[in-house]
């Protein structure tokens, strides 16, 4: 505990390109890049599959394989394609972030009561209007849950990616381990954990403020699917 505290509070950790602030910015940058690119692919795909109902089985069986995929192996494998560049690792982060976003979007859209969909069409909305103004808002709690789960996994995997030489907060853990500096190892772990918890907290607030209005008083079971897809850890 003492070494960790000393490491975290020594002034040299708080400045320069290898200091905590610089590593934190790197970590957030990689993670944001991974999640945003994944969302650009997975969100439309999830909408399509959920809306048309086609490809749902394929998406679900693919996710079974994905859950078992060891992230360390994946990171190392893609790194070999083009070493000394951050892009292979970003690709790995995208691969990891796609399934939770896609599956949650799909389940959220598919689980909407057909009566609600019919009512939207009956009011004269086009298919697109119904999708954007009725279905997406109703599925929003689940979509956000998917984003939250994906972000958590990406932050964890970005930490592991330090092993192949990527920057970010994982550097402290990997470098500290190679020189057996317990203060640096656990100091780095504490910062990573705090980052993950902060992001989780931000998502919890977002989920509360962006959910459908009636969802605050009653559980969202009324229009949402009965079973939520589970979150998975990385």
């Amino acid at each position, binding site marked *: *505990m003492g070494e*960790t505290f000393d490491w975290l509070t020594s002034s040299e950790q708080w400045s320069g390109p290898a200091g905590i602030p610089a590593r934190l910015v790197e970590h957030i940058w990689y993670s944001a890049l991974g999640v945003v690119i994944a969302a650009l692919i997975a969100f439309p795909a999830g909408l399509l599959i959920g809306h048309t109902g086609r490809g749902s089985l394929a998406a679900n069986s693919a996710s*079974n*394989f994905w*859950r*078992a*995929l*060891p*992230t*360390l*192996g*994946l990171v*190392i*494998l893609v*790194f*070999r394609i083009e070493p000394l560049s951050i892009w292979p690792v970003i690709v790995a982060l995208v691969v990891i972030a796609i399934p939770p976003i896609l599956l949650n979007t799909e389940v959220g859209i598919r689980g909407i009561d057909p009566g609600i969909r019919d009512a939207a069409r009956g009011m004269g909305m086009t298919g697109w209007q119904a999708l954007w103004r009725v279905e997406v808002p109703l599925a929003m709690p689940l979509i956000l849950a998917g984003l939250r789960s994906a972000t*958590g996994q990406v*932050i*964890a995997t970005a*930490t*592991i990616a330090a*092993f*192949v030489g990527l920057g970010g907060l*994982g550097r402290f*853990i*990997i470098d500290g*381990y190679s020189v057996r500096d*317990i203060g640096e*190892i*656990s100091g*780095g*772990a*504490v910062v*990573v*954990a705090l980052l*993950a*918890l902060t992001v*989780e907290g931000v998502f919890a607030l977002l989920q509360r403020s962006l959910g459908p209005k009636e969802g605050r008083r009653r559980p969202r079971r009324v229009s949402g699917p009965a079973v939520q897809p*589970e979150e*998975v*850890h*990385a």
Partner: protein
Amino acid sequence: MNWGWLDRNLDTVLEDLSEHIQIALVSLLLGCLIAFPIGLIAYRWRAAYGPLLAITQVLYTVPSLALFVLLINAVGIGQTPVIIGLTIYSLVILVRNLVEGLRAVPPDVIDAATAMGFRQTRRLFAVELPIALPAVVAGLRLACVSNISLVSVGALIGTGGLGQLFIHGFQIDNPIEIWTGIVVTIALALALDLLIVGGGRLLTPWTRAVR
């Protein structure tokens, strides 16, 4: 690709595989043993569930490598920090599924059982738990596959298992070793998943009764 490597190192791969299975299953078993009483307490005393869920969610959010490393401080290196970390993750999944499964038991069924003279404890074991079993099996599957995938991360702090193949394959630039690790890990996860699904079906014959 250097296929001869696989031939020559089959023993190492099998050794890593058995250590991988051991770590994953010991954590899953410990998770079950701890989750069962906690889940029952959270089900019986509803007020306890909210705070319990919040605490476990916080633990669950900590990235695996960070959790393992922080546990080294407490228990030293070796398998122990990884087993404890994975036990915590399994625990979170299992408690949540157990409580949600028990809560989803229809109230009429509970009333009927009570009317038939079941006391609380017997009702729990003879009626409520069997009905909640599919949810528990779903939790077991998730915890198992997540454990299998995460044991590899332990290789970064020197724990054995298939993750060693990644580290070593990276160090000596041997793609076949990395691929072997990935393929064997996925195969192991799917095999254990099938076992759990099969076991779950044997225990819940009524869910596949011919109508």
